[in-house]
């Protein structure tokens, strides 16, 4: 079943054409890694999928809902799309537990006890059970990012978006976050991941998509894209990063 359908996606910032017609279909349970040079439009593409950026043109369908529809109920659709940011963006004035229970209680009207029970389960999944009562400022970057993943999962999303989730982390904690993501992928979560961790992409991705200058240049199995890139631009990029 198709989880995500993106057709002819365009995004301009003023006269700056950042996305220039992108198409992507994602199957249920598929893990997609987006790679590409800085400024190529990876973040913008991801942010168009949950409408944090309003696409200039094109269609985005997530889990059967047309998010680019003028009358779309964006809040309801976004509940179904988890997003993890490079800078974590935890709520600093709330404890770890409240960070996780806030949206389910606010949007899904979950009872506090139910929301908290689910939060504790998710904290166990990301390996941070004992941190439930801490404030984000007392956690390391890797721990904060794992809480952010738990927070997104608390809404039971059908799709998870990750925008360079490990780029702001110290090297020694990158592994903890990647381990959580690997676990999610194994559990069958549909994921679109922007990453510079080529080793991780090669290992976890079902499909690697190379973006340059606002278009999808090349996509395929990790072994194809990394092993035998078809396009000159892909080769040039991979030579620089590998």
């Amino acid at each position, binding site marked *: 079943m198709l989880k995500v359908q993106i057709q002819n996606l365009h995004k301009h910032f003023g006269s700056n054409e950042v996305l220039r017609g992108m198409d992507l279909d994602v199957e249920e349970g598929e893990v997609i890694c987006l790679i590409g040079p800085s400024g190529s439009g990876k973040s913008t593409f991801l942010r168009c999928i949950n409408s944090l950026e309003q696409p200039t043109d094109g269609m985005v369908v997530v889990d059967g809902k047309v998010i680019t529809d003028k009358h779309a109920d964006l809040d*309801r659709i*976004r*509940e179904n799309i988890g997003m993890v940011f490079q800078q974590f963006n*935890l709520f600093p004035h709330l404890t770890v537990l409240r960070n996780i229970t*806030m949206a389910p209680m606010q*949007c899904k009207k979950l009872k506090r006890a139910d929301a908290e029970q689910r939060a504790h389960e998710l904290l166990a999944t990301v390996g941070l059970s004992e941190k439930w009562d801490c*404030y984000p*400022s007392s956690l390391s970057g890797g721990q904060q990012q794992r809480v952010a993943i738990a927070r*997104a999962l608390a809404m039971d999303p059908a799709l998870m978006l990750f925008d360079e989730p490990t780029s702001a982390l110290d090297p020694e904690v990158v592994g903890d976050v990647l381990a959580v993501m690997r676990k999610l992928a194994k559990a069958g979560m549909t994921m679109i991941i922007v990453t510079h961790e080529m080793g991780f992409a090669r290992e976890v991705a079902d499909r690697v998509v190379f973006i340059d200058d606002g278009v999808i240049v090349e996509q395929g199995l990790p072994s194809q894209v990394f092993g035998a890139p078809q396009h000159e631009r892909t080769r040039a990029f991979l030579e620089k990063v590998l």
Partner: protein
Amino acid sequence: MSFFELLQESLPLFLQGMLLTLQLSVISLIIAMFIGLGSCLMNISKIKVLHWIAMCYINIIRGTPLLVQTFFIYFGVTKAFGLSMTALTAGIVALSLNAGAYLSEIFRGGIEAIPRGQTEAARSLGMSHGAALIKIILPQALRIVIPSVVNQCIITIKDTSIISVIGLAELTMVGSQIIARTFRSFEIWIIVGVFYFVIIYVLSKLSKLVEKRLSLAQGADTKFA
């Protein structure tokens, strides 16, 4: 008459004056908080008309003296619309409108200081614009602005002395009245000053306590701000 006899004799009047000053300050500041928050939300609203109304209000208040605003409300507005208004009501209206405009700008500064990522995280979880504002942005913004809000409270408490011009017997007015009777202006203005000083000193101490409480409420080693 010695200083202490003077003090003893005028103390009841001063206490009455202080009571009025406190009444004027507290009521005006409470109303001003609501006006400030309301006009701030209007100001940052995407609805152009609301933004425009808030901008007009803020600019008019900031561009004119409180004395003129007070006269305008007590004499001008009442006359033009045939209203009757006590000096106390007029004083409260003038002070709340005045402080409200400054608080509005303070609140806006606080809200704008919260990183965009906070709103984006909240919205990406499915929270509405309003829920993100109330649950995520405002609680953080209010913490940041406490020192500036306290500062505005202090300014407004001192501004109550201007309200004496419309005949309200608050502290400053009481002072002038006693001087008119006793000609002891040196001592009396010192006493008046001490009263204001004590009120403001107590407020400052209280606010420090509140700030401490709030910072404790999110871990002693808070890095956030």
